[in-house]
């Protein structure tokens, strides 16, 4: 355990725990757009920037991304100093130039007093904030089907060679995790479309409703030791089964007790 000061309050943290986690535990609101529970910190959006110093630093201060900076003994952190707000505001000004119509960005910018960017808006703005959550989630799941491509103005998320990604299994984790709902997919009947690919959805033997893609089921049973049978019924039917089993167990234990 280490003890440090955040916005004037002394707090304790696990050694090596990232500042952002400690800050959040204290209920302090710091914008952190590229942070996601499922993946390692990335330091991409820079919005979680905080000011740090120590008694021993002789007044010297530094600005670091809280999502990537480990808690240290005697650290003095300020999450909303004048300079921090200034830095965050200029970042949001840049975000507004790239994503002028994205509600998430508009809201954060407005909180910092910005309604319009002072930069030139990109020619074809979209809702991708380049947080890299989708690509990292996909990597983490073991597919690495999509990635960040190009750089500078041309940076975007794309499947390899800009063609339907061969390694995608249509699990939708990327779309689910995307903070701006930029990743589009379509489920029509038992057909799922995402990233220009088309998948067939398995159907639940009990309810007749679609479950997950054949490819995803095959992956899970092969690499995650989940029997293929499991995917022959959908979640709803699983819950139904669980409820009635639990009901039987409860009745059974009540009988046992009253014996």
């Amino acid at each position, binding site marked *: 355990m280490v003890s440090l000061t955040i916005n004037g309050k002394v707090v304790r943290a696990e050694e090596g725990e990232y500042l952002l986690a400690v800050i959040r535990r204290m209920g302090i609101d710091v914008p952190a757009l590229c942070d996601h529970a499922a993946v390692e910190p990335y330091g991409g959006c820079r919005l979680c920037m905080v000011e740090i110093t120590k008694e021993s630093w002789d007044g010297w201060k530094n600005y670091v991304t809280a999502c990537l900076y480990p808690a240290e003994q005697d650290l003095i952190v300020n999450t909303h100093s004048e300079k921090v707000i200034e830095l965050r505001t200029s970042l949001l000004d840049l975000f507004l130039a790239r994503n002028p119509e994205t509600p998430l960005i508009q809201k954060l910018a407005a909180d910092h007093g910005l309604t319009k960017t002072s930069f030139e808006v990109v020619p074809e703005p979209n809702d991708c904030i380049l947080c890299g959550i989708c*690509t990292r989630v996909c*990597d983490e799941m073991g597919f*690495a*089907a*999509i*990635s*960040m*491509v*190009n*750089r500078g103005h041309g940076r975007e998320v*794309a*499947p*390899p*060679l800009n063609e339907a*990604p*061969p*390694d995608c299994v249509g699990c939708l984790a990327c779309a689910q995790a995307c903070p701006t709902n930029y990743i589009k997919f379509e489920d029509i009947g038992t057909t799922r479309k995402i990233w220009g690919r088309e998948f067939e959805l398995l159907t639940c033997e009990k309810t007749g409703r679609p479950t997950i893609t054949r490819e995803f089921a095959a992956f899970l049973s092969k690499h995650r030791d989940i029997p293929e049978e499991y995917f022959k019924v959908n979640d709803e039917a699983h819950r139904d089964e669980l409820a009635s089993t639990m009901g039987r167990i409860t009745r059974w234990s009540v009988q046992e007790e009253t014996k």
Partner: protein
Amino acid sequence: MKHDLSRVPEIIERYPQQPSSLIMVLQDIQKEFSYLPCEALEQTAAKLGVPLSKVFSVSTFYNAFSLNKKGDTVVRVCIGTACHIRGARQIQEQLETALKIQAGETTKDGKFTLEVVGCVGACAMAPVVLTNDRYHPQCKVNTVKKLVAKR
């Protein structure tokens, strides 16, 4: 020009078959073909154990790599600061009209690719144009077209 992709496996095998060899392999492929053919990227991904998406990510990140076939002569106009103030943009325009392409494109006959680049380290000779690896110092708007005259 048809490229002989049968040389790709040999190029990949020059380096340890591991992810960290990626950039070296891509550099050699780029050198051999003057671009990165899709099939070569796929083979590289499979051999080095790097997901294809990551190979694509690296290939599109660095300026040294190109996914499109380049012309026999790559004409690079330096638009770095020194060249810029000595008229690089006008030089670029002259070359664009001469070749009837925009910077970043290749002529239909595959003879020329026109690119703009940052400082090429020869500011004293500004404005500079390169044809492949050859430097042309103090280019002039009225004569620069000669560099791309059909021979």
